């Protein structure tokens, strides 16, 4: 099943100038050679022009460019052919149909990358990064994915694994070589190695919050009393009218979510119903939704009209917000009030666009504090799977420390270090199970 010839469109279906079809597997060259005429295998990795024909009717389907890759020097590690066809709905479908008639089968979601993984061309983290790269909508997401594809995160985790093994080696030395010249390992040396390891694990785990935000988009909840201009701001940040804006307070009854890019970072903007005790049941439900979003928010953008003092109720509400807060003074075109340089307050006019650029920068700075400081995105933990495994490794390493303090013997304490190694290997995929693989691959779309 892993070596048969598969084919799929690697670019999105629909109107476009060009589209790319990939064919991979044992016999991919033969299958492609049945459809492409003339077709030559040698030399590989060189784009050549040819014609795609229907092998049965000999009907001309398209003028195409094709590139031949020979195993194992290809994306999948198998024989592979990439065919650049004209875009649109018809040409790619016809050429694909001809390839299926010639013996290829439709690739399953993520199957090309799965083959690359199984042929050792990429590790699990790289396979995930490929998915991330394709899904990336914000520049920082792309940088992080490319970094991971480059084995940035894998190398960091490899290095952590080596550290755990080195620490275990110290403990093992004590057990296995009790009569050596150099004597026992000083406890300080084990303590220092343990501290360093713990710090390194914590460091990489600290990137997890922003890393996962980077992949999924930071949840930015726009809050404020009714008619504070939340929906206008929402639309202005998106650049399109998604929310209905009226002068009637309480127009937005439900939360609306839309993706946006601010300062190069991905956000999920949530426009919420105003926070009042309303008698209207539908709106009350909306308010309930708002509270739930507020609890999950990575950043809360609180709207208050410029020139209006906040009342006690608003202040009380602001005190309950756990997430980092950005206060926006809206409608500055009306008050004539210009910039607000009070801390964490930004003056914005959704109407004129004034202050929007500053607000975007501020959002990026608050939600991605660490990442927005470094020019290049360092390897970060971008998935819950990574975070869970790394936390497990940290827990085990901490448990090792506790066991030592409690005076447990080295051999017993060391079992924690072995468990930490296993946890780290789970991230890189050295000892991955099919379940993990399946969940990784279920997020792929066809033809990657």
């Amino acid at each position, binding site marked *: *099943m*892993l*070596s048969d010839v598969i084919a799929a469109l690697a670019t999105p279906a629909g109107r476009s100038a060009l589209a790319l079809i990939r064919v991979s597997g*044992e016999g991919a060259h033969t299958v492609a050679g049945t459809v492409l005429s003339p077709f030559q295998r040698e030399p590989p990795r060189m784009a050549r022009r040819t014609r795609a024909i229907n092998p049965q009717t000999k009907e001309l389907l398209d003028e195409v460019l094709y590139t031949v890759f020979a*195993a194992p020097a290809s994306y999948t590690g198998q024989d592979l052919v990439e065919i650049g066809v004209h875009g649109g709905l018809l040409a790619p479908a016809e050429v694909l149909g001809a390839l299926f008639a010639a013996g290829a089968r439709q690739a399953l979601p993520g199957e090309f990358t799965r083959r690359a*993984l*199984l*042929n*050792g061309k990429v590790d699990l983290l790289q396979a995930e990064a490929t998915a991330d790269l394709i899904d990336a909508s914000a520049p920082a997401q792309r940088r992080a994915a490319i970094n991971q594809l480059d084995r940035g995160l894998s190398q960091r985790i490899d290095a952590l694994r080596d550290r755990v093994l080195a620490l275990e*080696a110290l403990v*093992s030395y*004590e*057990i*296995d*070589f*009790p*009569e*050596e*010249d*150099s004597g026992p390992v000083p406890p300080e040396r084990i303590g220092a190695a343990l501290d360093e390891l713990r710090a390194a694990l914590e460091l990489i785990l600290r990137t997890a919050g922003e890393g996962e935000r980077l992949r999924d988009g930071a949840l930015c909840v726009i809050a404020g009393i009714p008619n504070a201009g939340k929906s206008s701001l929402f639309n202005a940040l998106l650049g399109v009218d998604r929310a209905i804006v009226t002068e009637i307070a309480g127009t937005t009854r439900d939360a609306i979510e839309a993706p946006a890019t601010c300062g190069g970072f991905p956000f999920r903007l949530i426009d919420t119903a105003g926070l009042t005790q309303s008698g209207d049941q539908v709106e009350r439900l909306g308010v309930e939704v708002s509270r739930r979003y507020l609890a999950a928010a990575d950043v809360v953008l609180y709207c208050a009209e410029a020139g209006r003092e906040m009342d006690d109720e608003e202040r009380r509400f602001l005190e309950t917000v756990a997430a980092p807060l950005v206060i926006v003074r809206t409608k500055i075109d009306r008050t004539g009030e210009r910039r607000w340089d009070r801390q964490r307050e930004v003056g914005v006019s959704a109407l004129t666009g004034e202050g929007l650029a500053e607000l975007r920068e501020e959002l990026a700075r608050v939600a991605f504090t660490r990442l927005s400081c470094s020019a290049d995105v360092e390897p970060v933990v971008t998935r819950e799977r990574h975070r869970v495994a790394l936390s497990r490794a940290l827990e085990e390493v901490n448990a090792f420390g506790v066991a030592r303090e*409690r*005076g*447990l*013997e*080295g*051999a*017993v304490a*060391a*079992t924690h270090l*072995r*468990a930490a190694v296993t946890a780290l290997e789970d991230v890189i*995929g*050295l*000892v*991955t199970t*099919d379940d993990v*693989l399946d969940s990784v691959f279920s997020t792929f779309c066809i033809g990657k």
Partner: protein
Amino acid sequence: MRLVRLGVFAARLGVYPPCILSFKSMSYDVIVIGAGHAGSEAATAAARLGGRVLLLTSNLETIGQMSCNPAIGGIAKGTVAREVDAFGGVMGRATDRATIQFRMLNRSKGPAVWAPRAQCDRALYRRAVRRELERHPSVEFFQGTAAALLLQGERVVGVRTTHGAEFHSGAVVLTAGTFLRGRIHVGTTTRVSGGRAGDPAAHDIAEQLEALGLTVERFKTGTPPRVDGRSVDFSRLERQDGESADYRFSHFERVPRPEQRPCWITWAGAEVKEIVRRNLHESALYGGEIAGRGPRYCPSVEDKIVKFPDAERHQVFLEPEGLDTAELYVNGLSTSLPAEVQLEFLHAVPGLEGARMTRAGYAIEYDYYPPQQLTPWLEVKALEFLFFAGQINGTTGYEEAAGQGVVAGINAVRRVRGDEPLVLGRDAGYIGVLIDDLVTKGVDEPYRLFTSRSEFRLMLRQDNALKRLGPLASELGMLLPDEERELERRLAAERDLVELARRTVVSVAQVNGYLESIGERAIPEPQRVAELARRPKVSLRTLLTAAECVPPELCDDVWRSAEIEIKYAGYLEREREAARRLAELAGFELPADLPYGTLRSLSTEARQKLERVRPESLAQAARIPGVSQSDLQNLVLEVVKLRRAVA
């Protein structure tokens, strides 16, 4: 025959190729060539299974000879000696009869890694091994050097000696130690053929095995000089007495200990370093005379000084050779320098200024067969009914050899009878770890066991060897009636003790004084002994004594094993869980005839390694260096595909 399962993965049964010959015409079931530590265990195990055994050795006077240091046991090795004993083996009993100093290593590090080690009187040890072998009526002895294996096709059917005597057998176990094309080096000019100082090497059989297509490589090892104790100034040495602990390696026999002797500690300092460095070009090791690789963990004095130039001094242990001799073994100064240089540096060691050297140290290089050529039951894949055990498989150490001897002896008999082979799991014992490492990963230096080699360090202890392996030995039919009773008694005693600890409650008054005295938190109300004994520093025996219900007549092993089971229950459960996961992988068997070379989904490296090792299961495949996770995934798919094609 059904075998007991200990834990979940203690013993597994594989499938032999079909038997071609009937064994009516054979005079022996098993011929064991060599009577060292592997050979004597192989012969004993085969005899205990009821096999007719011929023990063929070049010199009947050196049965059970300790060729290197006069000690048995140590880290992991002590546990192996006890595992061998659980199979009714020779090593533990012989050690008890020969112990002239005993120490429990790692005593400060907690009972899970305690390692018993005994200095032995070489002569007493030899005598005890011979005595043990002669206890089995079905073991016959013959002095002679094996010259050739008798073959029928690819099957081994007997042995011919250098004097032309032929012996026929169902199976042959070869335990040749360092004798195959052994070459002894002292300095760069003295190079003599020999399997051990004073004994000739064996060439014919080595040449035959190579001609038959077995891959052969060379290893080296060394031994230190020995000195006349009458010429040693003991007043300048630190005396190291053994422990008075009444410890025995054997589970089944309790012999009185011989008279005890001390060891002596001194050190080699700057002057020794200077002498060695100045004469380095005359060392066989450094003069380029020896090509084979030596053990990193047992370095020669040349190695120590070249590789660790910053170390100021190196410890030297003077170990007694025996009760009826003053000769001392100079442990720590193994060397292949010329004899006169050895004497010179010995005189630079405090206490040895006037020492007379009785024997010079030497290096020996010898043939070994990379052990991936063996099945996990130690049969040579290319030559049926031929088994290898001991140093010819690339290991070092008496205990490692003995452990392999047991497994080879058992399987030689089972093979001849057409029974399924016995494969010891990694969680069953260090012997299982050792053999799995050998046949799966091979060796790139002489292989020695450490606790770090095992992923089940807490489960594989010296105190529970009988509990782990005794039931298997019993099921195999290796134990004598009184040994069976002892096994039953001990298993029941430990069960009862754990149960007693669970049932017994200690009062505040009974234990708080004790807890205070060891710096432990007092208890506010009565507590169960099993609960309280979970604290690291608290002793189970003291608690039960305080509660006034100590069971009488329990041996130390039972106390220790029960206490560890209580104290580290959670940790042990984790290891057992890991063992279960391993068993799952091991349950996925790989066909013996899998055409790895044609499996294109595997990496080239994996294809070559798998072709060479031919693992029995996915678990074994996973432990081969160079076989990646993706190779394993593909392997599963290929096997599933093949199974479908067959069905």
